[in-house]
Structure formats: structure tokens, C-alpha cells
């Protein structure tokens, strides 16, 4: 603690109390390095894109991406019924529908293609309430209501849903890189799909339910009540291949927060979030919402 400061005794006592018990650290150094390498590559690419030659190359790639989109996985077929999340009686997630195109998943995928693919998947999977519509969140990256690549890795989508009951917010994250750390021959590495350890449900808590299915998929549901009547429902699915999808629905719209430097706490704008837990569960279980490393 700074010795050249005249810190009031009450503040000093509070500072000495520290931050208390810390939750387990999920960041691993190999994962940080992998993300750092991707960020460095992206930066180099942006620099390179300044030259005329690269501009033409990027144009070619974009054209190719558009052409590939028409045959990308997840562009066909409708979503599952939100009211009937497809779990078998044994509790195991059902295999992919036969309507899914028999296209092998790509090893890597450029962000432009991934965001378009995920947009289409969301369009098909998202079951809006009657009379509901999607509204772009003011200030969202790229000014889009659809998926966007997050610099920390993975793809996210944030949108408001407005229906006669009021405005709500939906946040979706699709990621495949936040894996546990594996130790092989004494060396810590990022887990591969094969070496990924089995998921384990966290300790029981009143607002959390967790289920591990026969194939190793873990689904957690949290129901949180916050100040000013705000309700936050979160469903996340961690899949055996390392993919994870998270969906959070709130009963206030992000657009309702005033655009000031330090906005006040949000206030509920409808009795419950716009999507039910069952709808959120169906959403995170949709196999079209999947992450492939960017290239």
C-alpha cells in the first residue's frame, strides 16, 4: 500500500481486507498466447491491407467468401422448436437432424464467413415472442444486430427484442477456444478436442442448475434477480468438442440505458426476459451455433 499517501484508517482497513476469496482462475497462459498470436496476425493483416496489392487480394477473398456462403453449413433447414429442446429420454443430446447438410465442419473459418453463417443460424433458431422484433443495439460493434467477431476470441451477438410486453435484451456468445488447461508430460498446453477433460458441474447453488448429459455435454442454467426488478436468465452449453454457447436474456433493453458517460443502473421494462429458459436452452443447443477457429 502506498506509503506516501495519507489514507484514512477506515479505507486502510478496507484495503487490508483485500478482495476476499477469489474464484478459480480460468485463464491459461497457452490460451493467452494463442489469442495473442491471432491478434498479432490480425494486426499484421490490417497493416498489409493498406497496400494496393493487398486490397485487391482482400477483394478476391471477399468474393470467394460470398460464394462459399451459399454452401456453408447451417444455412439450410429451420430451427428446432423452442418449446421442445431436443434431448432424448436418456438425457443425451440427440444427434444432428438428418436435415443438416452433410458438409464436414471446416477446420478454420474467416470471420466474415463465420458472422454471416451465425447470422443465418440465429435467424433460423431464434424464436421471437408473438409480435416481437429484433432491434439493433445502439453503439453495437459494426452497427449490426447480428454476430460479430470479438477481439477476445469467439463470436458474439447483442440485440434488443421488443414486443408488446416491452423491451428486453439478448446476448449470445459462441466460442470454442476457452478450454481448460491440459497438462501433458509436465507441460501445460491448451486442450485439444481429444484431450479435453470431462466437464464437472460446479457446487450446488440456489439459483443454478446444471446437467451433464451422456455424451459429456454440460448445460447450466442460472436465474438471477438484480436491483430495480431486473431479471437475468443465462443458459450455457459446453460441448465435448470444446465448443460453448451462452445465451443471456434480460428484461430490459440495452437501448433504454441513457447514453451518458456513467449510465444509471438498468430498470426492468417487462415482467420477465423476452425468451423463456426453454427457448434459451433450445438456442444454445442448436448445432449450427458453432465456432471454428478463424483463419
Amino acid at each position, binding site marked *: 500500500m502506498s506509503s506516501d499517501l495519507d489514507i484514512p484508517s477506515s479505507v486502510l482497513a478496507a484495503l487490508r481486507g483485500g478482495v476476499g476469496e477469489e474464484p478459480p482462475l480460468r485463464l491459461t497462459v497457452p490460451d*493467452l498466447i494463442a489469442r495473442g498470436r491471432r491478434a498479432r496476425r490480425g494486426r499484421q493483416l490490417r497493416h498489409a491491407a493498406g497496400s494496393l496489392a493487398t486490397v485487391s487480394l482482400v477483394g478476391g477473398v471477399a468474393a470467394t467468401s460470398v460464394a462459399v456462403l451459399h454452401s456453408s453449413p447451417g444455412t439450410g433447414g429451420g430451427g428446432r422448436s423452442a418449446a421442445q429442446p431436443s434431448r432424448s429420454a436418456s438425457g443425451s443430446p440427440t444427434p444432428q437432424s438428418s436435415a443438416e447438410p452433410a458438409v464436414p465442419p471446416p477446420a478454420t473459418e474467416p470471420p466474415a464467413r463465420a458472422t454471416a453463417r451465425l447470422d443465418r443460424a440465429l435467424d433460423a433458431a431464434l424464436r421471437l415472442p408473438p409480435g416481437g422484433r429484433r432491434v439493433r443495439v445502439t453503439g453495437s460493434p459494426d452497427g449490426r444486430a447480428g454476430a460479430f467477431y470479438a477481439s477476445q476470441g469467439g463470436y458474439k451477438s447483442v440485440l434488443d427484442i421488443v414486443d408488446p410486453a416491452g423491451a428486453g435484451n439478448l446476448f449470445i456468445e459462441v466460442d470454442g477456444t476457452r478450454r481448460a488447461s491440459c497438462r501433458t508430460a509436465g507441460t501445460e498446453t491448451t486442450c485439444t478436442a481429444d484431450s479435453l477433460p470431462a466437464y464437472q458441474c460446479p457446487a450446488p447453488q440456489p439459483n443454478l442448475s446444471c446437467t451433464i448429459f451422456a455424451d459429456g455435454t454440460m448445460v447450466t442454467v442460472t436465474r438471477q434477480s438484480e436491483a430495480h426488478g431486473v431479471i437475468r436468465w*443465462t443458459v450455457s452449453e459446453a460441448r465435448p468438442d470444446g465448443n460453448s454457447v451462452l445465451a443471456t436474456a434480460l428484461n430490459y433493453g440495452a437501448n433504454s440505458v441513457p447514453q451518458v458517460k456513467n449510465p444509471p443502473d438498468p430498470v426492468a421494462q417487462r415482467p420477465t426476459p423476452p425468451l423463456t429458459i426453454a427457448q434459451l436452452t433450445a438456442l444454445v443447443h442448436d448445432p449450427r451455433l458453432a465456432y471454428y477457429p478463424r483463419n
Partner: protein
Amino acid sequence: MAEDADSDFSAYAGARVGALRRSAYLLCGDWHKAEDLTQTTLVKLYVAWPRVQRAERVDAYARATLVRAFLDDGRRRWRGERPTRDLPDLPTPDPSGGWSDRLDLARALARLPARMRAVVVLRCWDDLSIAETARALDCSEGTVKSQTSRGLALLRQLLEEPARATQTEGDH
């Protein structure tokens, strides 16, 4: 060469990730967001590692990046995002009684404006000098001094409020 740099970064990140996350927690008051801020900081540090390491200002760069990531995060309009992949961290009282102090500190810090909070955390928790804090926040040393003074006064007031209230209740 690249392997050496990675090895140096690994050693640094392994040693400092916990401290950075604790600072981030005091800034934002949420362990999940703190982890995201720490990740953002270390990824940016990795990208800039060769340059930062040569200049021998790794800690200063990491602190400045963390604070800027926190301030940038606060400016975002789409505030619906709160990644909670696993669990919300529910506070559990510890038998030593320290929990109350920590809760009060976190609550009191949360009521300070973002930049003032950053100044107080950097000065009082991370033990940065006035000059280092000014560099991290890209502001003048005078601003750091005044923000520290005001921040500590406000913190004191906020921390002593519950105690006064309890005392008053006890008097009746």
C-alpha cells in the same frame, strides 16, 4: 527468438495474472468482467511484448492497458453483456468477519466515478506513484493528486456511513 519471447511472456503472465485480475476486480467489482479485462490486457501485452520488453516497462504497460480496457468497457453502450459462462460468484461470509469490510470496499469503490476509482486503485492498491498513475491514465500529475484526495475522502465517507448508522441504531 520467438520461442524465447514466448517463454518470457509465459513467465510474466503466469506470475502476474492473479494480481492483474485482483486489480481488475477492484476496478469493475465483478470477477467475470475482471477476468475478461485481464485477458484483454495480457493479449494486448503479448502483441506489444517485444517492444515493451525492450523498453523495460512491462508492468507499467500492463497497468495502463488494464485501466484503459476498464474505462473503454465502461463507455460501451451495449451494456447488456455480462459473460457468465459458468457461475455467478455468490459471496459467502467468512468466519473472520473480513467479508463485511471487503463487501463495503467493493460497494464503496463502485460508487466512485470510473476514473476516480482507477486513480484510487492504482495509487492505493497497486502502489503506483503519482507520476506512474498519471502516465497510466494519460493525465496530469495534478489531476492524479486531486482525484486521489477526493476519492479517498469519498471512500472514507462511504465506508463510515454504515458504521455510523449501526452506532445510531444501537444508541436507540
